């Protein structure tokens, strides 16, 4: 073990072992290292657990807090849109069921989007100090939100059952078995859009401040609080630009058998989502190597 002055000499024959880590200047797009991601799956589990538990630490109601966001919002909407503004609804869907189903999915999407779109801003201090695959953080957020969503869906099922016993005119369809696909679709959409938004905005605070508005406008334009059938014919085309609409309307259709589905709208939604995911991951792989220098 001598400590002689090892002059730069790249001609040294490589040892028997291959190199484990290579650090090079960032290329425009470097491929994501999925195998490395796999090595950190322990961390993924720990982060999901942390996000889920920390939210309601030191509260009396505990995990019940997860339910309150959609429940309270649904209650407010039932009063405002049902009794005061009287938005036209499809058939016999009870208002509470209508709002709760839409908002449950919407909050899954918007909460995930909000977290992922602020990825660098909220985790920068950690990213500055230690290396791990950065994508672990957004994926863990999607998963811990999924646990929360599961609780909310159980609650939704309870509300549904009660409403049916009270004589509501709706019954679930067999399509409901496909609803995990919708949740997966929303997760992918939140990931793609969130990563893209994060990459575009971490440098410019002006842009990142637009996020709350985007989410608020999104809630009103994603058929969360009105059925697609209530949209005037003249502006129906805007459905094609918002990939959240088909997800929520389809979910309601599976749940109640009522809703207006345009197949071409589903196709455009999927195309938009896939494009956003690709753009999101590409922009992320570009910025993750550079943002520490600019933050």
């Amino acid at each position: 073990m001598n400590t002689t002055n090892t002059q730069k000499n790249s001609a040294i024959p490589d040892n028997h072992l291959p190199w484990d880590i290579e650090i090079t200047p960032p290329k425009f797009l470097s491929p994501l290292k999925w195998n490395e991601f796999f090595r950190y799956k322990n961390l993924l589990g720990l982060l999901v657990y942390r996000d889920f538990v920390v939210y309601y630490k030191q509260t009396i109601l505990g995990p019940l807090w997860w339910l309150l966001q959609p429940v309270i919002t649904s209650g407010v909407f039932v009063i405002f849109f049902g009794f005061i503004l009287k938005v036209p609804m499809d058939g016999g869907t009870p208002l509470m069921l209508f709002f709760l189903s839409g908002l449950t999915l919407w909050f899954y999407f918007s909460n995930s989007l909000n977290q992922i779109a602020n990825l660098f801003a909220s985790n920068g201090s950690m990213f500055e100090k230690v290396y791990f695959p950065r994508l672990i953080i957004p994926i863990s957020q999607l998963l811990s939100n999924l646990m929360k969503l599961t609780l909310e869906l159980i609650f939704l099922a309870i509300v549904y059952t009660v409403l049916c016993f009270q004589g509501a005119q709706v019954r679930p369809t067999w399509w409901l078995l496909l609803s995990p696909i919708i949740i997966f679709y929303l997760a992918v959409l939140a990931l793609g859009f969130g990563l893209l938004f994060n990459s575009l905005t971490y440098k410019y605070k002006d842009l990142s401040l637009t996020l709350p508005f985007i989410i608020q406008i999104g809630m009103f334009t994603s058929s969360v609080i009105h059925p697609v059938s209530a949209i005037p014919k003249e502006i129906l085309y805007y459905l094609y630009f918002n990939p959240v609409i088909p997800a929520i309307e389809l979910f309601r259709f599976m749940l109640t058998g009522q809703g207006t589905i345009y197949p071409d709208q589903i196709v455009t939604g999927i195309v938009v989502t896939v494009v956003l995911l690709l753009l999101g991951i590409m922009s992320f792989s570009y910025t993750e190597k550079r943002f520490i220098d600019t933050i």
Partner: protein
Amino acid sequence: MKDIVIQVEHVSKMYRIGQLGHGTLQKDLQSFWARLWKREDPNTLLEMNGQGGGKPGNGRFLALDDVSFEICRGESVGIIGRNGAGKSTLLKILSRIVTPEKGLIRMRGRISSLLEVGTGFHPEQSGRDNIYLNGGILGMKRHEIKRYFDEIVEFSEIGEFIDTPIKRYSSGMKIRLAFSIAAHFLAEIVILDEVLAVGDHFFQQKCMNKMEQLLKNEGRTLLFVSHSMPSVQRMCQRGLFLDHGHLLMDAPINEVAAAYHQQHLQSNHSAASINQQSDAA
């Protein structure tokens, strides 16, 4: 045969001085537009000239300038130099926090990089949960964390508070816990940035002994940055002397330390010309 675990070839890193980016969207868009049409960028920062060397030329400076070295298995190497010499930049590049502008680095084996201890601690979670989470962030698997759990608790002297949320810990307890976690999860290559300066004097001594034991007995490779020459000389056999981004010297630690003091003395004579904080010592 030399068993090289870290190979650094011609690594350079450049930073812009002052504003990072143009800061505003408007100027960035202007530059982008100019690039798109191949016009001259109105906000251009002239390209770096080869000599750089920390001189604030053209709004940029080279934090590292063509640095090359190799480290073999089991070596412990101290990196010394004044503030702004590029030490931390080098460690950050080796830790994969930032990327170099030029050059190539190759490494063998797992790396523990302790630029800070306790990264990712969550105040609401108990010491126990934080040990697991922090271990996970350091890249450890669950069974590895389990195996060392009791040792970590004992070493940190946290004792019965292990299930208390760490926001109730004193700052000393937090640091002791953080350091104990880091010290027990060391991989084959260890990168240390002054984190030994934690806790009270007794705990510092304990940390130093623990580190030495870990390094000597288990044949680990160490890269160590500190301004405290005694601890560098105690921990390391070899020294790298960085100055303004250049690797001035790569020699046994005592020679490097002598050269460093020499530079320090000289700079004291011409103190007026040096615009540096006085904490180079």
